[in-house]
């Protein structure tokens, strides 16, 4: 950052993007662990995107002669009980898991942050009404909700994302609301009001940036949650069905055959946990980078 360099008024070359986000990016780049996390996630993402072209086999191609074989030159990570290549299945599974993780979380973020910020900012009766609605949704048994959706509309990936997102946003909304409620009392919000800023501008420019810490922490908690939820739903027969795969599904099959064929658990488990590690590093880094106080001694 150009804090120590002096700024000459004549040649004032102000970096145009001195927004919180540009600044955060500059600081994030200095955080090695976070950059490693980001790099790893990007690698996984690229691999998953390119899977149809780079996968050594097809995800449903069986080689029943092999059965469940350990790692070999032909099958780097071994094969499952049907003789399907495990590496291929993990790559294909990653597509589903990452998609579910990110899309459902994005849905939860978008709805939850907006809804919570509006409720917290408006306060009073609006807030009470909005939060009672959240309470009602909390009270609905969500399994039944999803099963109903699946039964009525058929098994559908998009619907699954939306359904999971529709549940995860409730907690996000509560967290954001309580943060915004506290921040709203602060004088800088009053100062913004006296400048004549519109409520939307106050929420977007002044309130949400100051609530980012808890939002990011909760987001990094939500992504793995959502991935495991997908595995659970798939296990119940509501999500992905074999021969398609997802990490959650692979792991739950891996658990069943853990004693005879441990690699069926280890490799999908590694893929999931390393991704989650990377995500947490990135999340921690982001939280620090977005807090001007945390990142400079």
């Amino acid at each position, binding site marked *: 950052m*150009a804090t120590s360099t002096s700024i000459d008024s004549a040649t004032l070359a102000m970096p145009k993007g001195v927004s919180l986000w540009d600044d955060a990016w500059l600081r994030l780049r200095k955080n090695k662990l976070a950059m490693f996390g980001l790099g790893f996630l990007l690698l996984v993402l690229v691999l998953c995107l390119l899977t149809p072209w780079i996968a050594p086999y097809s995800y449903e191609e069986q080689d029943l002669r092999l059965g469940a074989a350990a790692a070999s030159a032909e099958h780097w990570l071994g094969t499952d009980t049907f003789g399907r290549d495990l590496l291929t299945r993990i790559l294909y599974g990653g597509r589903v898991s990452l998609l579910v993780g990110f899309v459902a979380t994005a849905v939860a973020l978008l709805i939850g942050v907006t809804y919570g910020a509006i409720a917290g900012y408006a306060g009073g009766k609006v807030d009470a009404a909005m939060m009672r609605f959240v309470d009602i949704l909390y009270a609905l048994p969500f399994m039944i909700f999803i099963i109903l959706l699946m039964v009525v509309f058929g098994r559908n990936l998009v619907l699954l994302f939306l359904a999971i997102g529709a549940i995860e946003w409730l907690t996000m909304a509560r967290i954001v609301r309580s943060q915004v409620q506290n921040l709203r009392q602060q*004088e800088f919000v009053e100062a913004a009001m*006296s400048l004549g800023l519109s409520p939307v501008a106050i929420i977007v420019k002044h309130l949400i*940036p100051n609530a980012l810490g808890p939002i990011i922490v909760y987001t990094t908690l939500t992504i793995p949650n959502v991935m495991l939820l997908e595995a659970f739903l798939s296990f119940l027969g509501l999500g992905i069905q074999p021969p398609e795969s997802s990490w959650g599904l692979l792991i739950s099959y891996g658990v069943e055959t853990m004693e005879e064929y441990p690699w069926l658990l280890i490799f999908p488990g590694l893929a999931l946990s390393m991704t989650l590690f990377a995500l947490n590093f990135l999340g921690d880094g982001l939280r620090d980078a*977005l*807090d*001007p*106080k945390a990142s400079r*001694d």
Partner: protein
Amino acid sequence: MSLLQVTNLSVYFHTRNGTLKAVDGVSFEVEPGKTFAIIGESGSGKTVACYSMLGLVPMPPGKIESGSVLFEDRDLLTLSEAELRKIRGKGISIIFQDPMTSLNPFLKIGDQLIEPLRLHFAISKKEAWQKGIEILEEVGIKNAAQRMHSWPFEFSGGMRQRVVIAMALVTEPKIIIADEPTTALDVTVQAQILKLLKELQVKRNIGVIFISHDLSVVADIADKMAVMQEGRFVEQGTRDAIFNNPQHDYTRKLLAAVPNSEKSAQENKAEQNLVEVEDLKIHFPSNKGEAPIKAVDDVSLHIKPNEILGLVGESGSGKSTLGRAIIRLLKLTAGKVSFDGQDISRLSAGEMKPLRRQMQIIFQDPYASLNPRMTVYNTLAEPLLLHKIVTKKELDNGVCSLMDSVGLARESILRYPHEFSGGQRQRIAIGRAIATKPAFIIADEPVSSLDVTIQAQILDLLLELVERFDLTMLFISHDLGVVRYLADRILVMKDGKLVESGSVHQVFSSPQEAYTQALLNAIPGKSLFTTESKGF
């Protein structure tokens, strides 16, 4: 024979960014029945000096480099933590600054009061309770036996500070360290607490170390004093010697910074008022069944162009509420507010927006009034762009000239609020307020959280800006000295009503209302001004 003898005490903090000499070779004595005051601005090391004697400074990063502290023939600095614990609260007690946070909100007053007794003496609960009642009576709390069962939140700030004093006294200590004990209190309450402390001290023959940043308070209570700057005592001596004949430049600077002059009266001949308030009422709903809280009750006032109107009153008198209501940050319950001849009391938020440019506010706490996640550049650019004061092209220059106006270095343009000191932050907040070139500014206690020399700088900056930009200002404060320095006219507010108004000279020389007289009498440091015959 002195009670406490501190010799050459040095406490350093070793951090990653180098060594900070928080206390650097300090020596002083505390005598029974006398008050030794340490005066200095925040960060000067006065608190560290006292807390380190009792082992209350976190070590590391703190480290006692040298010195001795003799108390009852023992060097406190050589004692173990267990031995020190026996002295803390028994031999030496501390009264903390903020009575709102120094009492545990989940413990009844009585239980807190007898805790140090039961800790340090073998005494039954019943006896301790009885002693608690006696001490509460002694610090002036009525119905002490019943009040022992009260919760802290049932007491006002001044009453809580009395409880804190009772807690410090209950073990009959020889020395009390009073760490800014009245800074968080209103001026009339402050006067009562200072009087109480003085009485108890004489009666019980206690030595007091009084830490403060406020020269006027010290002038009333100190016998001997030291002026502390950057860890050193730059001057030490009797109260009279220091106030009447200061030797060190810094002491002179501190004394000069106390606002004690009166603004010369000027006739304001403007015909039309810029701001007019008629029968304004602001009521807040309270618990069901109870009458609403009348924060502002039937207030009428006017402010002429280019006038600085001072609004004084204690906390809870409704002065801040009134200020916010005038610029429509609050909903009005009844009454009328006109700005520049236009009735603004019923305008919608959209209709207010063009007017917002004309009226701005500066808040008390520069820590809370700036968005911690926006750089100075963004904070100052926001109003400029919102009200189209400058185009995007001219924005950089606009921000820079604002920084110049409020005396901030241009180099710091990309910094965040936490990287600035309190005074600098207040400059940023002032810059934001004048960015839209407003006609009217409300300054809500803008200097009350600042050190005295910084306070003087900010007041002068405000005066300069008023002159330069033809501003009209409503200056809200609980500090009469500050108001006197700045204002043309004064309004006194109590319990939501205006009780007195007049020119500064009128109000100060011949106050009409009993409440105003009480406020004037409570101003600390009157002796300071009379000895130097500077007024009053």
